[in-house]
């Protein structure tokens, strides 16, 4: 044990004495701090901006004059997704998806105005966030700092001396590894402080933040283990460095891009135009509310008449046009949901395929864990789309019902000069329409989503430990 500690102490002293290594550590720590501050600021600005827009949209909605309810169905509503508590740590897909959506009757719109559509190509180079720094840059810097841990001792012949003096292989490697782990901890610290700061204010965020910290600690531990093992396995320092840079390029750059390309090719996602035409086709098959001879709506009318025990639409106590609108919206919405579910299922397949590649690259595992924890992954985005659609359906149907109850059929079909005024309902009604507030996934299901990437990282840790064990057995064996 004392050997381990002294090896670690020596290694750390050597790192601090070496100017390039020290510069690397300081720069990396600075970068981590900068990324944390910049990202916190960016997300805070985005959150304020969206909250302001949401409030303005709500004010516009409430300030509408007396209107026909169907006008309000078309007037629609804007909803915004406010960033989740930990989003600043890892913005994930947020810059790509857009955070606002226009809700209106008969149509399901996409979330639009994502950052990527309103900025330069630089967005695609990777964003300066704590997650990017820790996932992509930190392993590379650890490789720079650690490739010579063992290889250098071997090149200088000091490894043999150490072994001859009776130091166990295990304590030599353990000490070197411990030194590298200390450096990794320095990289993690600023991001963790930022993360803790984000989590403290938000309900339920603390256990998630702790899991993320655990995940990143595991991830960088895997990196340190791999670096130490490669440094011990390869005969020369330079070979170790080249192998590590190559391995890093493979895991951090190549696999994360090749896997999605494969997913795109294997599980093609229907485009919007294709879906829109498909929805229109299915809708024609269901029935046309404008066609008096349409079987579906003829049956619907018959049922309504029977329910109220009258012979003619004009005798109904409610406005038939409103009921028709309710039924029409029910039909279109069921189609929207079916197509949206189909699309979500394909995207789920794509993501599962990509997740399988985590066996080739721990970067994918930590990325998945990090985004899921920050609620900035596909799941969170789909949850927003789903809640927005439910909200759209609720307000549209409430307005349609308002048309049925508060606008008489006679007025609704009248075409005289004063009819326009009689069709309108009092503006006080707009206040009764429910407000949208995005409900983030509950803590328990977020934690559950973190489990599988954590297990994969644990698997990586095991594999890296085995590799180091192998390196340890071969250490000092003459070749």
């Amino acid at each position, binding site marked *: 044990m004392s050997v381990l500690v002294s090896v670690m102490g020596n290694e750390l002293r050597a790192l601090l004495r070496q100017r390039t290594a020290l510069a690397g550590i300081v720069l990396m720590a600075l970068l981590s701090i900068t990324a944390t501050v910049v990202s916190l600021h960016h997300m805070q600005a985005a959150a304020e901006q969206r909250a302001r827009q949401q409030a303005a949209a709500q004010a516009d909605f409430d300030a509408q004059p007396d209107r026909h309810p169907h006008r309000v169905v078309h007037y629609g509503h804007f909803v915004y997704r406010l960033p989740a508590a930990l989003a600043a740590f890892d913005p994930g897909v947020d810059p790509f*998806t857009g955070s606002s959506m226009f809700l209106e009757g008969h149509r399901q719109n996409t979330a639009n105005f994502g950052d990527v559509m309103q900025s330069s*190509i630089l967005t695609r180079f990777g964003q300066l966030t704590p997650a990017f720094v820790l996932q992509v840059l930190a392993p590379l810097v650890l490789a720079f700092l650690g490739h010579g841990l063992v290889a250098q001792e071997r090149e200088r012949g000091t490894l043999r001396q150490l072994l001859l003096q009776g130091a166990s292989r295990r304590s030599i490697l353990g000490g070197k590894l411990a030194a590298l782990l200390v450096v990794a901890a320095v990289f993690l610290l600023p991001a963790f402080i930022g993360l803790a700061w984000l989590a403290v204010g938000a309900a339920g965020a603390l256990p998630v933040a702790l899991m993320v910290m655990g995940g990143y600690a595991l991830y960088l531990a895997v990196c340190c283990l791999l670096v130490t093992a490669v440094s011990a396995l390869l005969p020369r320092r330079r070979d170790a460095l080249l192998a590590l*840079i190559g391995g890093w390029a493979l895991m951090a750059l190549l696999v994360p891009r090749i896997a999605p390309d494969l997913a795109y090719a294997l599980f093609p996602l229907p485009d919007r135009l294709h879906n829109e*035409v498909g929805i229109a086709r299915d809708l024609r098959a269901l029935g046309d509310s404008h066609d008096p001879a349409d079987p579906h709506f003829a049956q619907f009318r018959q049922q309504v008449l029977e329910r109220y025990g009258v012979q003619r639409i004009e005798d109904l106590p409610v406005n038939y046009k409103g009921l028709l609108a309710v039924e029409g919206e029910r039909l279109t919405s069921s189609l929207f949901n079916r197509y949206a579910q189909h699309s979500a299922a394909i995207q789920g397949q794509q993501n599962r395929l990509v997740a399988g590649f985590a066996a080739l690259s721990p970067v994918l595992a930590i990325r998945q864990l990090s985004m899921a924890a920050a609620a900035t992954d596909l799941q969170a985005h789909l949850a927003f789309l789903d809640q927005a659609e439910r909200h759209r359906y609720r307000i549209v149907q409430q307005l349609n019902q308002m048309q049925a109850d508060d606008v008489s059929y006679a007025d609704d079909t009248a075409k005289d000069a004063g009819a326009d005024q009689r069709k309108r309902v009092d503006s006080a009604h707009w206040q009764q329409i429910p407000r949208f507030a995005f409900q983030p996934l509950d803590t328990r299901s977020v934690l559950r989503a973190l489990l599988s990437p954590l297990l994969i990282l644990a698997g990586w840790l095991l594999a890296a430990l085995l590799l180091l064990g192998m390196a340890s057995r071969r250490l000092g064996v003459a070749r």
Partner: protein
Amino acid sequence: MNLWRHEFRLLLRSKVAFGSLLLLALLGIASLLSGVQRIDSQRQAIERIAALQAEDAAAVAAAHADSTDAGSAAYYSFQPTWNPPAPLAFAAVGMRDVAPIMLRVRALGLEAQIHDGDAFNPELALAGRFDFAFLLTFLFPLFVIALMHDLRSSEVESGRERLLRSLPLRMSGLYLRRTVVRMVMLWLCVAVPFTLVAVLQAVPVLQIIAVLSLAAAYLAFWTLVCLLLARRAWNSGVNAAVLASVWVVIALIAPAMANVGIERAIPVQQGAAIARAQREAVNHAWDIPREQTMRKFYARYPEWKDSAALGSGFHYKWYLAFHQNGDDDVAALAAEYRDGIERRSAAAARLGWVLPPVGLQVALTRMAGTDMQAHLAYQDRIRTYHGQLRHYFYQYLFTDREFHQRDHEQVPQFEPAP
């Protein structure tokens, strides 16, 4: 000549060098195939438009067969627009990954339609594509570093340089040959697969030459960096570490930092604000006297001002007029929004002169027609086309001409970029 051949043989005899070159060539081929696959799937999606549109248009026409109102035709019929990929698009997929490449529009307010996105999986888009531009920008320099970092230091470390110096030959000639041989091999590994695929994809010769020259210039830049550092006479390990650090800073950190800077320096008003303003303007028309809307419309479009006065009933010309007014009301906002995006792109392009990786990406996506400029140009074409579409229906609406089935066939069709 013999000396050159000897250098080639020396290079290929080294296991690391040979393996690296082979890997580079294989990755190059994979990146090209991946890009071709992606763009091909987009081409197929575009090819499917015609059949889908025919089906939809026929159904819409049949559903309103009893109406001779051009307004209902304008309201119910959507027209497709699309942005076909340029031949070179496979090399740099760029914005085509996230920006819509096809969009259906109708003759109503355009601002509520033009910003709609297409369906895509954002998690897949996150990392970016594995295309030739990525290979060239990010991975290629690493291979250059792997082959060049010990050009001189390995000779020093093995003690050969001292021996060579004692011989009557020029050292600079030796290192020059060695450098040139490595550059040529590296360049060939990306140039040959690219040229083959580019020829198959019918890329214009000038563009092929331009891409090959860009690759050569980029290669020259990284070689220069390697040579400059070699003058410091560090050992191979330090050389490799320093070069890789330079790469990280130039290719990853600096662009990310610059992005933060550009987004701060050039604020872009959120597009959603435009959509909201347009909606207000459009819906307001229902609450004001209809003549007011028409006066505003005729003031801007006097060619229709002789149209008959509105009766007491609903008329689609009023409906389309207030949609037009809504677009016109936010035209300044929309132009400002576009201008902000353009200025951000321009700032990134200027940065390309300082940061070669950014410059390379900007140049490749520009040539491939896959950058933000190309997307904005597509939006411009949609705007022009939408103007024609409106004009077509206005002819019927403002002169109360009947709109018959055959008139559906005369609706202007979108013309993609030549």
